[in-house]
């Protein structure tokens, strides 16, 4: 195989039967330089390079990369007469469809459209049967007689009444066995909305949690865990903008407005080189283009949330915008129905999402995306004990916002580039209304970035290459007095900022009809910048304030510490026949930004931390092997994937330390080795009326930490299961179409229990019973299982009214199982004699009964 690849590459680079022009030769020399630099970067230890050298290298590499794109003559090296077949796939409203599948029957070859709906083939002259398909649309078949360069415009019709499927793997029916992707899932907005909902709101994160390999610590906990990774190892992108906390109402909902969604792509293995900065997964959420041809109104009214969307083409077929708003009114529940002491309770959120698209010419497109989301909640009568301030009621606030501008230019059908600039900002805070100690805690993280990406497709090769440059700024937390009588002194932790840069190339190459290779490489560089102090601890002693011997001060923009590394990404597909294929993949990803949270589930106010001299970047390496089969004329799609993943420098924490407002975080953070491995099975059956998905995974995830601190002896030096290690997870989704209007859906979820630590002994000091823990995560909570049902009633498709309404009914937790959220031990120390005190174990269920919900969606 390697020999075939090398031979092909040689011909690609220099064909002895061909007379090259000077320009063409220059292009080839340029390509060689590009490859040389890539190898140079690969082989050299970049840590040893200075910042200046690194950026010179980066500049040259980028220069050569760009020059490669200037060489647009490459098709001419092929001597046979060939023609271009280019086209665009659109829906009836004229919105281009991304990731639609174009399949050429005669060649058994296909590809997916790009983000503008474009596709292109270079083909020998002849007759071809072209099949265009997309989730939720009827497949169109065209006959093309190719004897000159040809352009096609394919309009797909929405198949609302026929194919409202719970589409788990998008694209063509046989994409499953045809592409080189492993551990990649695409879902369109339709698919997310068809699943049964909790409290009437379709949710992206909730849907992600039904996929194989995904676990979470509990019902409606913030975030999710992918193949043994922490929640901060997931890169969440909303139109290229990274989101630091997607949750509303601490995890019941997420920030993604379902009305504006186009699709989501979720990579838990085989992450392409253009994505980086997080170690475990990428959730790429794309908003759809606003309607270019007519005004549109959409919305939904539910029990505790409502949403509204307006779309307007400002200049027909040139400029169009959409704005979506969403808000919750959970407060009224507390105010009107419940106990008086809960009246102070506050639980609110709202968000706005804006998207605008401008097409100045056929070859250019500018996208603007902006969003803002705000959450507030206050609970009567709690206190912030860890801060040593007595408080009666704390109010939490968090705000997430971002905006991006993306310019896409297409040089021709085969080449183009995207330039993106964005900012993303997350600001959590809470106030402490303790009389005499009133204070407010504030923190924040922001990222500003510029990214460029070019692509070039040749006969069987598609190359993507680009750069990313980001500035990260973190305020780890500050405490400010909130009244003039407050005894609190203003308290600040050291601000952190860093420059993170990366360059990448990714190549998809069809070596033969049976073999497809997807190879990419990414170099990333991270520089922690001053101003700031670096604390120096005595040699060979544990990092503790007692061993602090010196402080090094770094001035503004001086490099405090830098890291760099290369991240290879590889995917290979070998088709055994039309039915079976084997895929293998490897990826390595580096992460310089960490969410420091010492609780089982993260809080919105948890601290973000950049890598520094002590906190090393997390590095995940994952090896995946999969067997894919489509049986019975693509009616059955199946896959079996196995993976092994290793995460270096996985953070853990020194026992009993409080991380909030910690001045010396390195004295509390430990780093260890994470490993996880598992098998994931996925089966899908489709028919006219039925649509069913089954996913099952068997996995294990563990952490090994060597801690120098004696209080960590309970877990130091041995592997212990991670908080989200759930060996068995099973999800079954079924959709049944009763008729053209009514659909029934069901989800069954089973998760084995979550690791927990139970006490072994108890001691008595000052007549207080104290539980004693001598291990970590050695016990498990009971299993979790749940059945949800959904019923969707569409408006009659035969009536062509402009107003379209849709009812959505759901039952969550149908058989009312009291699923454990946590198990906890409570010692009641109110007796003067310790033996008469009781210490008991309790199980908390967040949702202990069936929850019905109803929502009405409209479209005008």
């Amino acid at each position, binding site marked *: 195989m390697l020999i075939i690849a090398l031979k092909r590459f040689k011909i690609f680079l220099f064909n002895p039967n061909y007379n090259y022009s000077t320009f063409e030769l220059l292009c080839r020399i340029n390509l060689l330089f590009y490859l040389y630099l890539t190898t140079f970067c690969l082989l050299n230890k970049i840590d040893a390079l200075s910042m200046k050298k690194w950026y010179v290298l980066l500049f040259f590499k980028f220069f050569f990369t760009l020059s490669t794109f200037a060489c647009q003559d490459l098709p001419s090296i092929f001597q046979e007469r060939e023609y271009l077949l280019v086209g665009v796939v659109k829906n009836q409203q004229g919105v281009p469809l991304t990731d639609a599948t174009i399949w050429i029957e005669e060649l058994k070859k296909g590809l997916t459209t790009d983000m503008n709906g474009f596709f292109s083939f270079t083909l020998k002259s002849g007759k071809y049967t072209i099949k265009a398909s997309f989730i939720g649309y009827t497949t169109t078949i065209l006959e093309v007689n190719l004897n000159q360069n040809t352009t096609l415009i394919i309009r797909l019709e929405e198949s609302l009444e026929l194919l409202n499927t719970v589409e788990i793997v998008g694209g063509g029916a046989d994409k499953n066995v045809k592409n080189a992707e492993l551990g990649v899932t695409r879902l369109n907005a339709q698919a997310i909305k068809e699943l049964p909902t909790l409290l009437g709101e379709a949710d992206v994160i909730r849907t992600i949690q039904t996929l194989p390999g995904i676990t979470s610590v*509990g019902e409606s*906990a913030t975030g999710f865990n992918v193949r043994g990774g922490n929640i901060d190892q997931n890169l969440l992108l909303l139109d290229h903008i990274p989101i630091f906390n997607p949750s509303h109402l*601490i995890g019941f909902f997420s920030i993604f407005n379902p009305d504006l969604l186009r699709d989501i792509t979720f990579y838990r293995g085989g992450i392409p080189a253009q994505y980086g900065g997080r170690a475990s997964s990428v959730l790429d959420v794309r908003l759809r283009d606003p309607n270019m041809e007519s005004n549109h109104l959409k919305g939904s009214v539910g029990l505790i949330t409502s949403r509204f969307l307006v779309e307007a083409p400002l200049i027909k077929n040139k400029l169009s915008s959409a704005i979506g708003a969403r808000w919750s009114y959970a407060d009224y529940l507390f105010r009107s*129905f419940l*106990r008086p*002491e809960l009246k102070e*309770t506050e639980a609110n959120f709202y968000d706005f999402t804006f998207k605008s698209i401008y097409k100045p010419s056929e070859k250019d497109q500018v996208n603007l995306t902006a969003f803002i989301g705000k959450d507030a909640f206050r609970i009567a009568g*709690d*206190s912030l*004990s*860890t801060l*040593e301030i007595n408080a009666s009621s*704390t109010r939490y606030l968090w705000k997430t916002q971002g905006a991006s501008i993306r310019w896409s230019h297409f040089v021709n059908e085969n080449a183009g580039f995207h330039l993106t600039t964005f900012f993303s900002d997350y600001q959590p805070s809470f106030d402490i209304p*303790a*009389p*005499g100690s009133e204070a407010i805690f504030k923190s924040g993280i922001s990222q500003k970035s510029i990214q460029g990406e070019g692509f070039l497709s040749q006969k069987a090769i598609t190359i993507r290459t680009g750069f990313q440059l980001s500035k990260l700024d973190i305020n780890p937390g500050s405490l400010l007095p909130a009244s003039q009588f407050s*005894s*609190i002194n203003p308290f600040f932790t050291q601000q952190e900022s860093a420059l993170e840069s990366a360059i990448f190339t990714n190549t998809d190459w069809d070596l033969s009809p049976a073999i497809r290779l997807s190879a990419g490489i990414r170099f990333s560089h991270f520089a922690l910048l001053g101003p700031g102090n670096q604390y120096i601890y005595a040699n060979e002693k544990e990092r503790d304030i007692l061993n602090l011997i010196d402080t090094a001060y770094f001035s503004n923009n001086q490099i405090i510490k830098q890291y760099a590394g290369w991240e290879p990404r590889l995917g290979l597909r070998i088709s055994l026949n039309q039915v079976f294929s084997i895929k293998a993949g490897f990826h390595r990803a580096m992460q310089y930004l960490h969410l420091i949270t*010492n609780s*089982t*589930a993260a*809080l919105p*106010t948890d601290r973000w931390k950049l890598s520094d001299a002590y906190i090393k970047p997390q590095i995940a390496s994952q090896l995946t092997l999969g067997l894919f089969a489509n049986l019975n004329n693509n009616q059955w799609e199946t896959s079996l994937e196995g993976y092994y993943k290793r995460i270096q420098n996985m953070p853990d*924490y020194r026992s*009993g330390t409080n991380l909030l407002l910690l001045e010396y975080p390195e004295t509390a953070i430990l780093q260890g080795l994470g490993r996880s491995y598992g098998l994931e099975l996925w089966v899908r059956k489709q028919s006219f009326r039925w649509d069913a998905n089954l996913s099952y995974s068997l996995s294990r995830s563990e952490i090994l930490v060597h801690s120098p601190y*004696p209080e*960590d*002896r*309970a877990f130091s030096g041995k592997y212990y299961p991670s*908080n989200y290690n759930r060996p068995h997870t099973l999800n079954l989704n079924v959709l049944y179409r009763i008729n053209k209007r009514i659909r029934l859906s069901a989800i069954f979820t089973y998760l084995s229990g979550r690791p927990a*630590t*139970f*006490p*072994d002994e*108890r*001691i*008595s000091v000052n007549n207080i019973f*104290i*539980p004693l*823990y*001598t291990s970590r995560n050695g*016990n498990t909570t009971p299993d979790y299982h749940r059945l949800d049902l959904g019923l969707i009633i569409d408006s009659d498709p035969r009536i062509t009214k402009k107003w379209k309404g849709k009812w959505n009914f759901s039952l969550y937790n149908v058989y009312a199982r009291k699923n454990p959220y*946590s*198990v*906890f*031990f409570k*010692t009641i*120390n*109110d007796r*003067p004699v*310790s*033996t008469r005190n009781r210490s*008991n174990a*309790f*199980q*908390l*269920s*967040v*949702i*202990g009964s069936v929850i019905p919900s109803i929502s009405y969606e409209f479209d005008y």
Partner: protein
Amino acid sequence: MNSIINWTFFKIFLPIALYFFASACVEPFIPELTTTSERLTVEALISNDPGPYKVILSLSEPYSSPDNNLPIETAQVSVKDQNGALFSFKHDNRGVYYSDSASFNAKTGHIYTLIIRWNGKEYQSSPELLKEAPGIDTAYTRYVEKTLLNGITKGEFEVYLSTKDPVGKGDFYKWDHAHLNKTDFCAFTYDGEARVRYRFPCCSPCWNIVKKRGVIDISADTYFDGNTVNRVITSIPYDDDTPYFMVFDQYAISKNTYTFWKSVRTQVNNTGGIFDNPPATIPSNIYNTKDTSELVLGVFSAAGHKSRGIYLKRNTAPTNPYRSTPTEYKDERVCRPCEESFKMTAKKPLGWID
């Protein structure tokens, strides 16, 4: 982020769930617990108060055991000061060891180390500095009304302590408080058959001690260094408008002691919840001199102590006090002695005015 969050979750999800006829619920859970070996537990406090000082030694018990923690009665206990002088403790009963008050009175500014020999092994504490405790400047009350779960509103007074924190970070505090009232009756009995309660008058003046149990009230001056701190210490019921006598104890504890109690508070209040820190072994400042990997439990603290008894006003409230219905007793003639215990004392409290 500990106790708050547990409550946060109870409170935020419970109502949402309740509204939808569902119920977030807390149910007893029967875990399978393993039993392990018994470990040495130490409880020792030395202060600038005159002796005797007390050291209590016991063994850990399996978590679900119904038995008392067994006392250790055969150990040799002593305290060493910074000059190497040894002060030995004598076993009294049930694992309680007392120092000799004639020969040992701890002083502020001195450093003390606890030494225990037991079972052929030697245990030692880290050296602990006895720091001077800042005094309690004032104590005052503020009237608040609280609505109980059954909808009844009851008034209470929040008690604030005011202390000037010394300049310079690294001051750690522990507070204790007790309500004392003079009592005429020293013993109570109950005849279950006749359903009659009897009470016996005291032979000498006697005071009841009312304490809130299981409260761990500690603080570090990280965020209020050098300021005058007004801290809510407890609340007193508004069941009468007479002054309420309280004794406040303020200890200047060491960082080790603070870390121990802080860790205990975390473990006792909220371990196992989803927003809690993972449970951890409680750090101790006592270790086996030969084998530092042996887990020893408990704490030896040397702490400066200031105490103050104060009458708190209860006639500042805008409404009338609620009065609880008194229990009916049949009075006996025979007097009973006022026995020293956790709920009674014959010593006149500091600051008590008859």
